[in-house]
């Protein structure tokens, strides 16, 4: 997590305006990268392909990609933060030679797990075998891409990630379009998969390039599952929380069956994906601004602790850090408030452009708020990671998952007027709880910094923190 910040701070110090823009762009892509790429690719494909595909094929194509995207992410979720943490510790110890073997080992395990899960699902799906194979490969590629991204982020190689995504996205659209001319759905699917394969290939190439190849396996990672079980919980529930409201809609009466076992709910999905797009600018702003400005205060605080300052100096620096968090959050609220306000002002024009029906428009309006709050939640989560408050994070992610499940279930049973309110109230509760937690922890940070130091000799050798 800390990795992003240092690089950005350096970037933001660059004088020229283009550097600044680039810094914001990077952070936007890294923070929401995969999501953006999928939405934009799907959107582009939608415009390009809608002519030469019948409605059924088009829906099947979109449904398969959304599923591959959602479930690959959920499948990788238990590994995500554990790997991030392991790499951060290794990176801190300047042991980058562990990256490639760890990458290969993680990839093997994830391909195995995802291969079994995805294969079993596709086996029973009543679609053409050729399409099954393409989707199966795509599913593994997505999983691989998420993993590769962690490795390159840990090494602060953002430019390459952005490049790989862009190339992969364009290739997906291009090849899908090209092959679709001749082979219809199978061509589209194979084309899209080929584009993502290129993306995965570029990311993997970079990993080998950057860290070299020393050996095929390293199992140190698995110790971290035992050492940081909370990180597994955080990953699982965070990503389940993100998808559970959509999944509930897919499999409710609002769900639209594409083929047996593959359901989407356009009335809910479309406005929600659109709403997520609206928070991308302010998220980029927040991440860039907060992680650069905040990290300065954060480092100053730990520097004071390390360099034997008296307690009142440490306290002052802690206060400065809290003040900065408050300041950045206020800016985020103002910026996102303005964006959301404009969108509501031009709601009808937007609805027109994206062919939203009145019901979808209602969901879109409340989803704007939900997406806003979810971003707030994500930001606090991000900050809590800086203080390694794993127990808090685990509790918050479970809370997010539970509230999103319960409230969405309620809103479903209450009828179309309340669609989206479940998601919005879940994100509200979670964001609020997260913010209170952060506030409390910042307030007692001195206590946590000192008193939570281990009393007994740690069992594992690798204890470096990314602080």
């Amino acid at each position, binding site marked *: 997590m800390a990795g992003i910040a240092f690089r950005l701070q350096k970037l933001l110090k660059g004088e020229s305006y283009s550097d600044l823009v680039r810094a914001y762009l990077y952070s936007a892509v890294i923070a929401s990268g995969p999501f953006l790429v999928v939405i934009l690719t799907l959107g582009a494909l939608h415009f390009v392909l809608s002519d030469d595909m019948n409605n059924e094929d088009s829906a099947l194509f979109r449904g398969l990609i959304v599923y591959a995207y959602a479930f690959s992410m959920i499948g990788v979720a238990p590994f995500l933060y554990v790997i991030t943490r392991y790499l951060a510790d290794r990176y801190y110890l300047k042991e980058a030679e562990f990256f490639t073997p760890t990458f290969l080992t993680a990839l093997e395990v994830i391909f195995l797990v995802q291969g079994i899960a995805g294969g079993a699902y596709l086996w029973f799906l009543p679609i053409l075998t050729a399409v099954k194979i393409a989707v199966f490969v795509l599913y593994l590629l997505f999983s691989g891409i998420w993993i590769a991204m962690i490795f390159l982020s840990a090494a602060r190689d953002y430019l390459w990630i952005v490049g790989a995504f862009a190339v992969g996205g364009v290739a997906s659209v291009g090849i899908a379009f090209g092959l679709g001319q001749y082979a219809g759905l199978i061509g589209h699917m194979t084309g899209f998969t080929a584009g993502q394969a290129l993306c995965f290939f570029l990311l993997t190439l970079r990993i080998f390039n950057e860290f070299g190849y020393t050996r095929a396996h390293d199992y140190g990672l698995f110790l971290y599952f035992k050492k940081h079980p909370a990180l597994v919980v955080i990953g699982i529930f965070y990503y389940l929380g993100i998808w559970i409201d959509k999944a509930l809609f897919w499999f409710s009466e609002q769900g639209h069956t594409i083929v047996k076992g593959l359901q989407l709910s356009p009335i809910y999905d479309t406005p929600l994906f659109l709403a997520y797009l609206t928070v991308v600018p302010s998220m980029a702003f927040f991440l860039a601004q907060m992680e650069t400005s905040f990290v300065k205060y954060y480092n100053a605080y730990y520097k004071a602790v390390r360099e*034997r300052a*008296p307690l*009142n100096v440490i306290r002052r620096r802690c206060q400065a850090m809290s003040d900065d968090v408050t300041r950045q959050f206020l800016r985020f609220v103002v910026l996102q408030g303005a964006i959301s306000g404009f969108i509501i002002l031009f709601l009808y024009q937007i609805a027109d452009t994206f062919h939203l029906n009145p019901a979808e428009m209602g969901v879109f309006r409340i989803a704007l708020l939900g997406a806003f709050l979810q971003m707030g939640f994500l930001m606090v989560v991000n900050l809590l990671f800086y203080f390694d408050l794993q127990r808090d994070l685990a509790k918050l992610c479970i809370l997010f998952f539970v509230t999103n499940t319960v409230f969405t279930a309620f809103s479903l049973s209450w009828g179309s007027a309340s669609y989206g309110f479940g998601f919005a109230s879940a994100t509200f509760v979670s964001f609020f709880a997260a913010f209170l937690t952060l506030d409390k922890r910042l307030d007692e940070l001195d206590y946590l910094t000192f008193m*939570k*130091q281990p009393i007994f000799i740690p069992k594992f050798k690798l204890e470096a923190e990314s602080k």
Partner: protein
Amino acid sequence: MIDVCLILEGTYPYVAGGVSTWVHQLISAMTDIRFGIVYIAPNSDPTRAPKYELPPHVISLKEIYLHDYQLQKKRLREPTLQDLAIVRNFYLGLATNNHTLFPDFLALFNGQNQCFDTTTFFSHKGIWNILVELYDQTASDISFLDFFWTWRGTHLPLMNILQATLPQARIYHAVSTGYAGLLGAIAKQLTGSRFFVTEHGIYTHERLLEIAQANWIYEQQKEHFRAERDLSFFKKWWVTLFQVMSQIAYHQADRLFTLYEGNRLRQILEGAPTEKIQIIPNGIDLAGFASIKKEPRAGLHIGLIGRIVSIKDVKTFLEAAALVHRQMPETRFYLIGPTDEEEDYFEECKTLAETLGLDHVLSFTGRADIRDYYKFLHILVLTSVSEAQPYVILEANICGIPVVATDVGACREMLEGRGTEDRAIGPSGLITDVANPHATAEALLQLAKDQPLYEAMALAGRERVKRFYDQDDLLSRYLNLYEQNL
């Protein structure tokens, strides 16, 4: 049930030395009493073997390790605000030498009403608040990092002591203050049994010497940061810690014993109630030494008996020996005692002896039967920078060997006499300044050249030890004490 539980810190039965010898004599002389031993060591060490064979009436041996931390799994009640107030007031009281709250403080760590163990004490928010309050009051411009770690470092071993479980006994007898004394005070509080302290060397004083030389304790001086005040903040802290532990032991003890007048005064300075203190010096087995047959050898033979360690200041002895050697080249010197305790120091001493050109006339005997040397030694030397009441003076004197000793511990009392009756016997050796090879050499030469003085001192030594340092006499005073309290 154990009659007397001896609480020992880094001595009997695992480490040889004066205190251990005394303990062994004490136990061996009282075969009717069932002894238990609680041994406090820094760490567990499975390779360690006892240096003494425990007599059969020692019916239990328990070891407590200061620096081995174990995670307790006990479920404890949550500390209340009142508990925290006790902790707070206990620490605030220490600033004014007030430890009346010790029993209440102890109850939070040991017994039915326990609410803290090592883990909870070091992670509790309320304890943190107290720590910060104390910091703001006493140290607000001092490195907090070091403040915190010194707090942890000083309190971690205390946690093991506070939570220790002791065998049931009618009498707890700590043979030092420090952790042993504190443990005795705890035992007294928990059981209501009698509690005695015998202090051979004054614990706080010995620790003070160590701490003053310690370079592992952080000193802000190096950072050019108000050096004059902070110079010894953390060193003072360690010293204060040991003082507080001693004071708690002094106040909880029913009786205090020490070896000689100088120590009694120090105990009083450290806050011991005067009326509790009684002097019982160490004695030796007269019969055993009466049987030593002298086998005089030609020439002059001078010995230093003791472990080759820096506290004995062997280097001063070597330099004095060099001065004597220059005037009386035939003189032989013996360093009799184990050399493995501070191996670096021993190496330095060997090098120094060579440099001084003493290798032909001087020998390091290593561990040896000192009785063989009492048969022919003419003068015994003690150059220690710190001593309590060294046996070797008694042993040498009873064998008719005058002693040249530095003015530390009981040396002066032992050579010149304590009460008027004792003084009347006359001196049995010469007293010199600490770390002054010239003075030591001068005294040695004086004894070597003045035959009548030598004879008189040899005679006075035998007489004094027989009259005032008979082991049977002195141990029977402890036996009486035990019997009165059983």
